[in-house]
């Protein structure tokens, strides 16, 4: 592992990025620059387009207009230095923990997989089946699987949404420490404003497919949740999120649009 010589994060730029599914415009003309090594959180109501933005950055969807630049170069396809942590851990149930983390690695790098699993505190569960792990442990395996590739951009798609509050706080500390250690650029999509404030350098609010707020969080790390300054920032952002009354009734969360999911069956 090159944790001593981190590759460093990459610089991400969105230029008038738009996405529509059929008639519905999910993202409208978004501009955003994320500096190398920055931790950016995207918050917003369900169905606001934040997950779609993440999928565009991951090249799992193609933008309808505008472009996506990494280090100044337009992105066309899946990048080897970008990894995603999904909301459901998406571990392969038929592979043991170590083999899940070593997925897509050359065999000589299995040692790396073992080391990263130790970093996430699962060094003793290498040969367990995923079915035997708790939800939090599964997400830690999924985090290890992403980190073993030494990504320069880590995309986190509500990875902690299904976890209980205590496990979530533990995972925040773990993600923060690994981010500081590896130096990748991180883009976190979440509906939890407290999570965003706890982790991010910048919090971005998306409303109706457009960036409505871009706020730098100047709190020193590690951030204490009980802190008055923390609470003030959290309240301000939460108030801003709640300000706009929901115009359309919230549709049942369409971040994974069905046509794309169907197309994936034909991946081979």
């Amino acid at each position, binding site marked *: 592992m090159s944790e001593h010589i981190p590759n460093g994060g990459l610089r991400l730029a969105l230029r008038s990025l738009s996405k529509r599914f059929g008639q519905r415009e999910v993202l409208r003309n978004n501009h955003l620059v994320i500096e190398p090594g920055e931790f950016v959180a995207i918050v917003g109501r369900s169905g606001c387009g934040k997950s779609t933005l993440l999928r565009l950055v991951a090249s*799992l969807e193609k933008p309808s207009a505008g472009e996506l630049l990494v280090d100044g170069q337009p992105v066309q396809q899946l990048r080897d230095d970008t990894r995603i942590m999904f909301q459901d851990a998406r571990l392969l149930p038929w592979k043991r923990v170590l083999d899940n983390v070593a997925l897509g690695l050359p065999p000589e790098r299995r040692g790396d997989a073992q080391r990263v699993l130790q970093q996430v505190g699962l060094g003793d569960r290498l040969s367990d089946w995923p*079915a035997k792990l708790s939800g939090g442990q599964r997400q830690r395996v999924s985090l290890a699987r992403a980190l073993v590739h030494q990504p320069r951009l880590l995309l986190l798609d509500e990875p902690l949404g299904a976890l209980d509050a205590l496990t979530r706080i533990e995972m925040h500390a773990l993600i923060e420490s690994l981010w500081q250690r590896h130096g990748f650029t991180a883009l976190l999509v979440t509906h939890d404003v407290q999570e965003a404030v706890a982790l991010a350098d910048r919090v971005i609010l998306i409303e109706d497919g457009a960036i409505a707020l871009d706020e730098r969080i100047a709190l020193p790390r590690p951030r204490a949740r009980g802190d008055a300054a923390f609470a003030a920032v959290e309240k301000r952002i939460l108030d801003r999120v709640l300000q706009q009354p929901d115009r359309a009734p919230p549709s049942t969360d369409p971040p994974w649009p069905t046509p794309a999911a169907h197309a*994936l069956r034909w*991946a081979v």
Partner: protein
Amino acid sequence: MSGGLGSLAVAPSTPSASTPANTPTEAAAGRPSSWLRSAGRTAARRALPWLLPVFLLGAWQLSAALGWLSSRVLPAPWDVLAAAWTLAASGELWTHVKVSAGRALLGLAIGGGLGLLLGLLTGSVRFFETLLDSTIQMVRNIPALAMIPLVILWFGIDEAAKLFLISVAVFFPIYLNTYHGIRNVDPGLIEMGRTYGLSRWGLYTQVILPGALSSILVGLRFSLGLMWVILIVAETISAQAGIGYLTMNAREFLQTDIVLVGILLYAALGKLADVLARGLERGWLRWHPGYQKEVA
């Protein structure tokens, strides 16, 4: 039959009837007695399911011995056992079992292999699905046994006819379950595999095939069941060797004991195949929570 009911009611009490032999020690210490009694109770519970089969066998043997049951209808169980022993000792039994099992397995290999291959193809490549699937679904509705007259015209009554019938019958369960297994692999896992840099081949061998495996094995177990049924029918129509030949030949000479040996052989082979298929499931689906309890 009333005598049978009487022995049924009496039998469960037998284990507890044997306990009084230990009364001296029981009286000395209170605990062993309760332990013994519960052990006796578990033994009774274990024995209970065997009671009826043992009773039926006994009744059968008795009525054959007393001449109530003609050996042309059913030979005594003891005679069946003796016939099986003679056949096994002469080696005749094994040659016939080998021929029958060979036929069944070759048919399974041909039909099942083709089913697996086409299922993988139509499940994975849209072009082949459009090209083949509706045709296969139409042909599927023809029962294999309905084709017997045609098959005899095509292949005569030789080996080829039997192999063809078995292959056709086992093809469809394996094809259908492979196809559905592949289609039902979680698209989220496939997407994950792609973003984690798996090649197409890697995606296929590490995500899609293992994901479809449990469904493919269900198809295999269905096929095994069909395989024996078709084999029996095909061998009964005509054969120069095999269990079917053994039984049909014995029928000519009214050797009902050998006919029964043949029937029991089919049953044993069917059971063996099912046990092997279960073993495969337990080995290949170790990761599956549904199979972990049996292993642990």
